[in-house]
């Protein structure tokens, strides 16, 4: 099993409980979509899985490929194959995109006991991935996400995913802020990375992304719990009926 989340409770540093018992199983090679209104806990779930500071897990467990995910620091999770595509990719002035990504890939390779790639070898690896995402070469030479448009930032996330080849990719609202052309490119990139041993969790507010990346399972997250699960047809039903019908406590749906 790729990912097994059991009764996961998590709260913010200020004590507010955001996740209130999430259960989710993701099998190898599966694509799961987690949908839900703003404030339902979608991004918190992604952050907790990636190991971001500022959240406290108070109950429950997460097993990633038969290991306790929470026993690993954020960087170790990444080296073990967990990847988070950020909803808001971070700008890092002064750090060259290529230098950054080579450091990341080499950290993984060291972890697996593989030899590191020099600049030339690395360039050959990334060239083909750039094409997959329709990205210009000069993006490699720019500082990480600095001066990138919203679409370029999201494409850069999927590009990083393509280079790092994770086992489990969590895409947090990767579709937000994308026009239809950029969405197609990003979706093509993600679809190109679907393999039988790679699982993908798509976190999204809208069904739109799922028209391009077809999920095996769709879950509705509401007020910190998964309230309904189904096949891809559930997304269409959500679009038609709205989140309100799934709400156990509809008034929380609007909170940010």
């Amino acid at each position, binding site marked *: 099993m790729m990912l097994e989340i059991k009764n996961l409770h998590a709260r913010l540093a200020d004590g507010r409980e955001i996740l209130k018992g999430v259960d989710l199983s993701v099998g190898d090679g599966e694509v799961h979509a987690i949908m839900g209104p703003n404030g339902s806990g979608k991004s918190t779930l992604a952050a907790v899985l*990636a*190991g*971001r*500071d500022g959240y406290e897990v108070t109950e429950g467990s997460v097993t990633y490929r038969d290991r306790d995910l929470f026993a690993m*620091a*954020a*960087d170790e999770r*990444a*080296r073990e194959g967990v*990847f*988070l595509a*950020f909803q808001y*990719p*971070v*700008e*890092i*002035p*002064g*750090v060259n995109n290529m*230098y*950054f*990504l080579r*450091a*990341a890939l080499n*950290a*993984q390779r060291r*972890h697996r006991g593989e030899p590191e790639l020099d600049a030339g070898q690395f360039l050959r690896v990334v060239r083909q991935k750039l094409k997959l995402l329709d990205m210009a070469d000069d993006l490699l030479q720019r*500082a*990480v996400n600095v001066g990138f448009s919203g679409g370029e930032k999201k494409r850069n996330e999927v590009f*990083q995913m393509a280079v*790092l080849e994770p086992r489990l990719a969590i895409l947090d609202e990767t579709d937000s802020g994308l026009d239809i052309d950029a969405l197609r490119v990003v979706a093509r990139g993600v679809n190109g990375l679907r393999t039988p041993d790679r699982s993908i969790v798509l976190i999204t507010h809208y069904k739109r992304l799922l028209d391009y990346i077809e999920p095996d399972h769709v879950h509705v997250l509401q007020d910190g719990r998964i309230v309904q699960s189904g096949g891809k047809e559930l997304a269409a039903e959500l679009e038609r009926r709205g989140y309100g019908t799934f709400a156990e406590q509809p008034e929380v749906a609007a909170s940010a």
Partner: protein
Amino acid sequence: MSAVLDFPVKPEARPYLEGFGRTNSGEPEWLSRERQRALIRFAELGFPSRRSENWRYLDLQPLQREPLLPGKSRRDVQVPAELQMDGACARLILIDGHCHGAVFRDLPQGVWLASMRQAIEERPDLVRAASCGEVDAEHPFDALNAAYFADGFVLDVAPGVVLNQPLQIIHFASASGAVHTRNVIRLGEGSRATILETYAGEGRYWRNDVLAVRLGARAELTRAVLVEEAGEAVHLAELDATLGTEARFSGFALLIGGGTVRHEASVRMTGEGAQCRLDGAFVVGDNEEANILTNVDHQVPHGETREMIKGVAAGRAHGAFQGKIIVREHAQKVDAHQLSRNLILGPRAVIDTKPELEIYADDVKCSHGASVGELDETALFYLRSRGIPDAEARHMLVEGFLREPVEEIADPALRELLLRRLARRLERLEG
């Protein structure tokens, strides 16, 4: 010196009065008089007090308690090859303040590069250009330097001559004692040059370096300073530059080594439309101290100033930036911007920053910004979320932070050299 003194002497200046006059015999009369005058001025001024605005962030107590006079220069000194910049068109090496020869590879006609001693013999006009004049109370070590300097370098570029490759001056110290060097760069009208000055050494010494830069109309000088002094060294350096009409000066200082390091750059715009960049960075760890001071005086209209100074402090280190920009009453249409950004690593490191604009003209564009902060946790998480271990991620962020001013340097070989030295310094910076 005569035993009877008819001027007031600060107690801490006494050893310097008593130690004076054993060398520099056989110099021209005017220079001896100049030295005497400067010595008397230093005796009156003594060491700067920490109440003095220009010296409040630097602790000179150890130096004040234990006077350092010029020491004996060792003969067998090897200057580390790694200090040499590849592709320099000329290189002059000063060891313990004395010229140890120059190598000329590809120097065009109209460029005169020699030791200060040679200039005293052959080009007294150039030496006088570096005369310390009336030293104010903020610059006592300029007076001490004018009294004590043994040697230095002098660069004179004739009008219209363009140097495409950088020159390099290596200041290396090996003796324990004081090293006073006095230097001059004069660029004639429309000429252009790039120079790297590298300061390094071993042991415990006090370096006191003074440079006068005189730029003619439309002359362009890029001067980079790399300070990699020994861990116990005290490094005090002053730059005094005047810029003629539409002259351009790009000063860059990278302070990455030395127990106590102070880099002061004063630029006077005397010709209209002159431009000046003063960029730099300091990195301090352990118990190190580093100060960058800039002082730009817009005396005439249409000048432009850009400053970007970055600082990183770790351990128990202390860094400071003090930057003053003065725009005189008639200096209209001046465009000046100053930025000081600083990063503190660890709970015991301290950085002070003090931007200061004094504006007396009413039609100017002047701004400044200053910040002191810690590493951006969001950026750190982003790097870690890609598998980069915590220590390596922190290192990348610090280096990225400091690269920005270095990347402003136009000469690629010079830029790469400074980036390499910076990366090496950061390898041994505690988190």
